[in-house]
């Protein structure tokens, strides 16, 4: 007889098929039977049992991908369970045999998924071990099985028929009925579980952590138990609220998750017996239902108030039949990242089992179904809670982390029992050990006092005036010359009225003049405000006005009201008293960052703050006069300070990239490049270099690479270490402009697991992770990263409210000190390192650039042809989705007038309307991916060189057919990809194509011609044989 499966069975069948070796769905009944045992009677009793319960003789067949349940007739050969009798000899071995069985998977294609073993420890001492696949029985079924087995065995011994009432319903009838009910419940669940929140779990378990993959070796259970009084108080609380202990514990579990993740929308699954009709009660089968409860913890309610909410949710949700997650339209991990179950089944039979006494026996079950899984049971008046974890955090300390979590749950239960009217943010969760951890991980904000940056550089000048300070192309200038030129320009600034406390703009190309200009501004007692050489005029004017600056060191013509100072201008140095020492409280520089309301904001950083940073970097980066440090970052970003000043403060040589940052591979490959010792790169750029690691001319003396700006990829770090081992130190840094360049660092040396961390607070810096109520959280919990100590900026120029909101009182620092709220989410790992987890708000990072989409959106909405605008990131590019009549081309031109290049979207999608979720937010999943337009007149590549170039572009840009007239940048190419184009061309032809060429020869045809020219030039220096080989490879 063949029957359809219930929806729940279908799901299990599918999951088992996806991973046949998975033992997650093995159910077991393990009991110790002491006394005289009749093994034949046991065997007979199982035959009786299988005849009675259809599930115990049901196997599963697949036909055209559809599973069917096939029940063997009672008594048929396949329908009588085989009882395996195993002499164990001792308890130790019995235990091992049981553990093997309960942790073994079932192949659903191989007959009835049921195994029975009778393990003999001694003549009067046996262990019964029944295992079956969940698809034929649930937890409730195990109780029935034991009861019915006891009766059948006793009846056999006594020579009578078992006293069991006939079963009114068969599992196959139930399956058909349940299919119809589930169909009707689909709309309810689709609506109730729409827009599931990000499935965060404590301690990096589940999807979000480093691993995200189940690891049986690290999986396990951690058990805690409450006292009797706590259990009684919680039970009383339940009754006062006309609910059950389950609801109270479920509420507490939601609070535990909330306090660890900050989420207020929390999904927790649970199991309900699904036996709400009398006729379903005596059946063996898979009837239990997995139901997801959606907790709403918004508004920091009291525990009692939250209990009322949970009660209401449980009453509604638990009365509905569950439906397979696949039909709700979201992956199971998103809908049910974790479960909580309160077990109430009895552990022993309710009927006599012959003359045997039935006891417990350790099962050593190791399977954990979810990242985190909580179950509770009552024992001796207390509540026993066990937390199962599946090894998915990737941390070798996972068991320890979950142990802490269990301890915290215990504390929380005690706190809720004692003070149910407290807000959930005020309930005790963190242990004394947690509080001690928070203090020791936070770091020390008090730095040792030391000289300001200009004094450190003056010391370098005094020590070795003839050492080379700056190299720019063919130009080299010594420390003495740098100092002399800075003094001259400073005098010129003084003559033009610059005074202490002023702000002076610097808008120059990458050049020695630019470095001189920064030093000259400081020497004149002012702060510098750096710009891109091609900064849009509107933004330049806005920023200068905002900073109250009127003078700019530049070669550009400036609008009226602004004074341009020639970078080569000289003043009479004798006419003023000379530089005064910079006070720690003087502003050193102002950097404008993207502002969410549409206006950029100027961050003012004082000399004391940047001096603390530069002193730490000089020391930590081990800078010496022998170092050659590449200046990669644009001066308009604060990363430039991390390159320029530790180098100059140590008397090292700064190597500029006059052709632009993207020409770094050219610089490394050119004469002199081999002498570079230190690189400081945006993480996104470094990722691209690592992709082509064998094509880059890494300098033999390279000893340190500092990366930062984005989440580093574990794969890239592994690849890097595979190539360089510990020879080149790799330092991952993190920090916002508001905390003076960087605030944390991690040495990515040594063996690592999972995603690279951002490390620990650096010198003179504190880091706390704060929850929504402003309280610090310990290891395993997520909070907002807040930075205190010497590097905290003065604030945002002329933005009192913004400054007061972001720079807040620091209770852990000196009296009156402030700390900066970054808006970044992070977590302390078990090792006390910080793991970066993205933004609290919508701020984006594109190739290392910090972007407030709100700023771009506000500018787009200024355009009369735009109705709605939404800006996001897709494939390392800024993408704008707009409605209205304007074209992408028009809008790009509109933005370019006011915004710097990195804020102008590279891809445009015009829609009739923005897709919205049922909660009214932009539905990111429904946004179409931007499509690249290739040029109108498509001419396929013809020559060998064109074919090669087109093929490489097509692969790196992800475009099917590239024509010879297509422009690299119009197709979505950017400087990071250009690095890889050059590397691929080199790999294919052996010819070094300068980065500059990729930028200048922007079409396939142009670049192909350039490539041919380079090949010819190379050929002239080659033997005939080498040339032949090369030409044939270029054609391939």
């Amino acid at each position: 007889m063949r029957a359809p499966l219930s929806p729940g069975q279908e799901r299990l069948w599918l999951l088992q098929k996806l991973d046949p070796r998975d033992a997650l769905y093995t159910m077991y009944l393990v009991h110790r039977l002491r006394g005289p045992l009749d093994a034949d009677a046991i065997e007979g009793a199982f035959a009786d049992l299988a005849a009675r319960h259809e599930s115990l003789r049901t196997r599963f067949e697949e036909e055209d991908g559809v599973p069917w349940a096939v029940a063997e007739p009672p008594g048929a050969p396949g329908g009588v369970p085989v009882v395996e009798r195993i002499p164990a000899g001792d308890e130790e071995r019995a235990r091992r045999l049981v553990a093997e069985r309960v942790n073994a998977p079932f192949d659903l294609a191989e007959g009835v998924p049921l195994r029975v073993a009778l393990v003999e420890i001694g003549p009067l001492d046996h262990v019964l071990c029944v295992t079956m696949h969940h698809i034929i029985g649930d937890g409730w079924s195990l109780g029935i099985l034991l009861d019915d087995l006891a009766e059948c065995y006793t009846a056999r011994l006594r020579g009578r028929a078992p006293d069991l009432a006939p079963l009114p319903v068969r599992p196959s009838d139930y399956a058909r009925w349940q299919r119809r009910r589930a169909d009707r419940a689909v709309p309810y669940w689709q609506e109730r579980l729409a827009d599931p929140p990000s499935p965060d779990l404590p301690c990096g378990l589940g999807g979000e952590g480093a691993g995200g993959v189940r690891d049986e070796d690290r999986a396990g259970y951690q058990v805690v138990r409450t006292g009797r009084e706590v259990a009684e108080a919680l039970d009383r609380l339940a009754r006062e609220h006309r609910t059950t202990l389950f609801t109270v514990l479920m509420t507490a579990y939601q609070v535990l998750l909330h306090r660890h993740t900050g989420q207020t929308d929390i999904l927790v699954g649970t199991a309900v017996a699904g036996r709400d009709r009398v006729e379903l009660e005596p059946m063996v089968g898979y009837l239990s239902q997995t139901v997801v409860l959606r907790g709403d913890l918004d508004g920091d309610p009291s525990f009692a108030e939250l209990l009322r909410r949970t009660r209401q949710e449980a009453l509604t949700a638990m009365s509905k039949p569950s439906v397979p997650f696949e039909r709700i339209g979201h992956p199971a991990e998103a809908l049910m990242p974790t479960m909580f179950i309160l077990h109430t089944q009895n552990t022993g039979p309710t009927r006599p089992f012959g003359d045997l006494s039935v006891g417990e026996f350790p099962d050593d079950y190791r399977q954990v179904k979810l990242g985190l899984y909580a179950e509770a049971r009552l024992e001796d008046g207390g509540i026993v809670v066990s937390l199962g974890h599946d090894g998915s955090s990737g941390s070798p300390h996972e068991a320890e982390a979950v142990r802490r979590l269990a301890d915290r749950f215990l504390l929380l239960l005690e706190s809720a029992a004692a003070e149910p009217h407290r807000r959930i943010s005020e309930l005790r969760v963190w242990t004394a050990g947690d509080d001690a951890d928070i203090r020791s991980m936070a770091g020390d904000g008090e730095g040792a006092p030391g000289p300001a940056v200009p004094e450190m550089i003056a010391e370098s000048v005094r020590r070795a005036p003839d050492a080379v300070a700056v190299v720019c192309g063919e130009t080299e200038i010594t420390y003495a010359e740098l100092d002399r030129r800075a003094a001259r320009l400073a005098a010129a600034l003084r003559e033009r009225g610059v005074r202490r406390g002023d702000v002076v703009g610097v808008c120059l190309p990458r050049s020695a003049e630019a470095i001189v200009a920064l030093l000259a501004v400081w020497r004149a007692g002012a702060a510098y405000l750096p710009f891109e050489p091609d900064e849009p005029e509107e933004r330049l004017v806005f920023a200068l006005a905002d900073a109250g600056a009127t003078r700019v060191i530049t070669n550009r013509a400036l609008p009226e009201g602004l004074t341009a100072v020639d970078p080569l201008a000289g003043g009479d140095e004798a006419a003023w008293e000379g530089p005064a020492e910079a006070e720690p409280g003087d502003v050193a520089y102002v950097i404008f960052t993207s502002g969410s309301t549409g206006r950029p904001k100027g961050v003012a950083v004082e000399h004391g703050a940047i001096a603390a940073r530069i002193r730490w970097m000089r020391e930590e980066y081990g800078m010496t006069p022998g170092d050659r440090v590449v200046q990669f970052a644009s001066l308009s970003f604060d990363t430039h300070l991390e390159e320029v000043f530790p180098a100059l403060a140590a008397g090292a040589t700064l190597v500029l990239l006059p052709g632009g940052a993207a020409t770094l591979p050219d610089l490394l490959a050119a004469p002199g490049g081999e002498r570079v010792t230190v690189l400081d790169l945006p993480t996104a750029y470094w990722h691209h270099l690592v992709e082509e690691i064998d094509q880059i001319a890494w300098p033999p003396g390279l000893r340190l690479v500092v990366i930062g700006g984005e989440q580093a990829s574990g794969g890239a770090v592994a690849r890097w270490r595979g190539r360089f081992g510990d020879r080149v130190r790799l330092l991952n840094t993190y920090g916002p402009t508001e905390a003076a360049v960087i605030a944390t660092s991690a040495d990515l040396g040594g063996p690592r697991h999972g995603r690279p961390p951002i490390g620990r607070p650096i010198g003179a810096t504190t880091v706390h992770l704060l929850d929504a109520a402003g309280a610090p959280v310990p290891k395993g919990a997520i909070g907002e990263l807040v930075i205190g100590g010497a590097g905290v900026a003065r604030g945002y120029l002329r933005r009192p409210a913004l400054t007061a909101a972001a720079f807040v009182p620091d209770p852990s620092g000196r009296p009156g000190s402030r700390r900066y709220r970054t808006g970044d989410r992070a977590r302390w790992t078990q090792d006390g390192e910080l793991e970066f987890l993205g933004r609290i708000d919508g701020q984006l990072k594109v190739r290392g650039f910090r972007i407030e989409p709100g700023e771009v959106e506000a500018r787009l909405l200024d355009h009369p042809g735009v109705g709605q605008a939404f800006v996001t990131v897709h494939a390392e590019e800024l993408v704008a989705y707009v409605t209205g009549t304007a074209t992408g081309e028009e809008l790009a031109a509109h933005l370019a007038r006011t915004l710097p290049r990195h804020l102008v979207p590279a891809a445009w999608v015009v829609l009739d309307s923005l897709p919205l979720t049922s909660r009214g937010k932009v539905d990111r999943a429904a946004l179409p991916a931007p499509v690249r337009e290739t040029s109108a007149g498509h001419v396929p590549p013809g020559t060998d060189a064109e074919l090669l170039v087109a093929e490489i572009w097509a692969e790196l840009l992800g475009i099917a057919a590239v024509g010879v007239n297509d422009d690299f940048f119009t197709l979505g190419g950017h400087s990071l990809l250009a690095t890889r184009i050059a590397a691929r061309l080199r790999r294919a032809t052996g010819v070094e194509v300068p980065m500059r060429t990729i930028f200048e020869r922007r079409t396939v045809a142009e670049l192909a011609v350039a490539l041919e020219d380079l090949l010819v030039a190379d050929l002239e220096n080659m033997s005939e044989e080498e040339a032949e080989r090369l030409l044939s490879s270029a054609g391939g």
Partner: protein
Amino acid sequence: MTDSPMLVVVNDEDQYSVWWSDREPPAGWRPTGFAGTRQECLDHIETVWTDMRPLSARDRGR
């Protein structure tokens, strides 16, 4: 930070910020007397914090 009532606080450098009304401000900070929602406090600060230089920098004229 939620909608709980907040205070405007100021430190010895005449720098402003906000703090919870039901918690003691950290050492070196004192309430100015203004209380309200977080947004009301920030709006108030926008009008009263006119010279954003720290007091010690103002004394030196920079």
